[in-house]
């Protein structure tokens, strides 16, 4: 995939120069690279928040280039979960309601089943005691975990995380990472995680390095593979 900004203007800039990447189901991949290398841009393309100028993107085998705005939105809602550096929870809603929100948007009216799904997810990220707290009343680490539970609400095939622990202290960051890893292992959810933290990258199955809009290295992480298989 290629992606340029400012097409047709004097300041046209290509930020991704032919990215070729396959994420297998259940993979837990780290996307690393210096600032400005195009990590977030790539994440937005894969997450259907943006479209490439050239190239094709398949989500669960479906070609996405020909889809209209509504179909893209539906596919995104169903197949992809997002965790951003900042949690972006809706402050007017409780933790539980925030987790329910993607299901509510998809189905239209609230029911007990979606409440139960959300409660289960909150339980998985260890936040059951805070389920009725407003999103603004819990700590940063907890907020990020609510955001993770929300990303999982539609049981997506792929979760894209853009520096999910970037705003957190080490202990909270580790906790958030543990949650991601645990979900990956129990649900076989595919993860693509942008991170600056080499320590966290080392805990992933595969590390893709991006420099100046090109993939410069793409290798399995032997250390993790050994430890998880052994």
């Amino acid at each position: 995939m290629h992606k340029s900004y400012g097409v047709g203007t004097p300041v046209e800039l290509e930020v991704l120069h032919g990215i070729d990447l396959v994420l297998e189901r259940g993979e837990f991949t780290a996307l690393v690279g210096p600032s400005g290398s195009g990590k977030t841009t790539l994440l937005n393309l894969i997450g259907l928040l943006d479209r490439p100028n050239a190239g094709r993107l398949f989500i669960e085998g479906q070609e996405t280039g020909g889809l209209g705005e509504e179909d893209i939105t539906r596919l995104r809602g169903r197949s992809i979960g997002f965790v951003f550096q900042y949690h972006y929870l809706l402050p007017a809603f409780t933790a539980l309601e925030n987790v329910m929100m993607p299901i509510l948007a998809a189905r239209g009216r609230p029911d007990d089943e979606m409440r139960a799904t959300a409660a289960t997810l909150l339980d998985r990220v260890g936040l059951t005691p805070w389920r009725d707290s407003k999103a603004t009343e819990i700590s940063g680490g907890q907020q990020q975990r609510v955001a993770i539970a929300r990303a999982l609400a539609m049981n997506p095939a792929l979760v894209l995380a853009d520096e999910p622990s970037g705003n957190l202290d080490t202990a909270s960051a580790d906790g958030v990472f543990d949650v991601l890893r645990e979900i990956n292992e129990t649900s076989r959810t595919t993860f693509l995680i942008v991170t600056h933290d080499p320590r966290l990258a080392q805990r992933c199955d595969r590390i893709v390095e991006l420099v100046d809009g090109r993939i410069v290295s793409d290798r399995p992480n032997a250390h993790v593979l050994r430890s998880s298989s052994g």
Partner: protein
Amino acid sequence: MKRFAFFELIVAFRFMREGLMQTLLIILGVGLGGGVIVFMSALLSGLQANVVRRTLNYQAPIRILPPDQVARPLRAVEGAEIAAQVQPRSQRLRSIDQWQKIRDQIERTPDVVAVTPVVAGPGFALRGDASKSVTITGIEPESYFRVIALDEKIVAGRHDIGPLDIVIGTELAKDLGANVGDKFRLATAVGANATLTVIGLFDFGNKGANERNVYVALRSAQNLLDLVGGASAIEVKVRDPFAAETIAQTIRGGTDLQVESWIVTNAQFFTAMRAQILTNTLIRLFVGLTVALGIASVLVVSVIQKQKEIGILRAMGASRGQVLRVFLIQGGAVALAGSVLGSALAWTFLLAWRELARNPDGTLMFIVEIEPSLFAIAMVTATLVGILAAATPARRAARLDPVVAIRS
């Protein structure tokens, strides 16, 4: 597949609750604006109805008079010069030719409710040292009361006018120092006079009419005004007073008589009313516009404040349509709440106004009828205006690019 907009409703109401201060302020703003609009509408229609009712108290919607007499120049004779100047002829009181036939004919006109002949002319009421100029109206009580509800305006005495009876207004009674049962002399310019007994006093709620109008039997007026067997006018009541002019034109078409509708004789009043409706409408329009702009500006700010939240809603699968509706609902809901408040305010104002706006004598200046339909219309209109006002900010929110919204 159409789903009911629960998601949109839930998000919209949470957003409004989140910015509670903003929401309450705009509801208050809409309420005040809406209150002014409802109050002015009620006042205007009340005023209109009152003036109409009062005018038609003592004036028939349509009055038919004999044709004006015109002086015709002599026909030009061969070889002779004729003076070109023609003096307008002075009009004497005349009877309508064959008024019985015309009356019967008008009675058959559609939308005509009642028809009555009258003899009306000037006269003097004389009692002791007092002399007052009056308009004598000779009536056939039965048919006349169907056109003008004089019988309902009697405040003292009776209304069954006999040959030697007279009914006068409260003002004239005061001026003459006469009361029910007293006698006075009525004289006219043709030299006739009669001594009549006051059998009743009326009050039309209009000083001029109470001072000037006197009612006698048709036969008495015919004698006093030297129109024996005649009728100087035919008065007509129609179903819809505002259609009077159209009906008058229909009647006019069939005769050479003068047919005057109250709409033409009160042209000044109708001009004033039109001007009032126009200014009133303009004020209401601008107040409405201000309210709509207020709603729009609050929502524009709200969209900017909530950019990131809108972005995340979009990222997690909310469609553009859903985001659009979230803001349209907010516009409509704020306007609806505001109009409920406005209606309550207007109701209060109207009740207060009704109490405060009194004539010098302490009677109510006019009765404002509080119509529930007005409030219903106000609420429906306000909600539509609110949704319309929300359209621009809502479309802006729907068009937000999630990437840009989250990143900004």
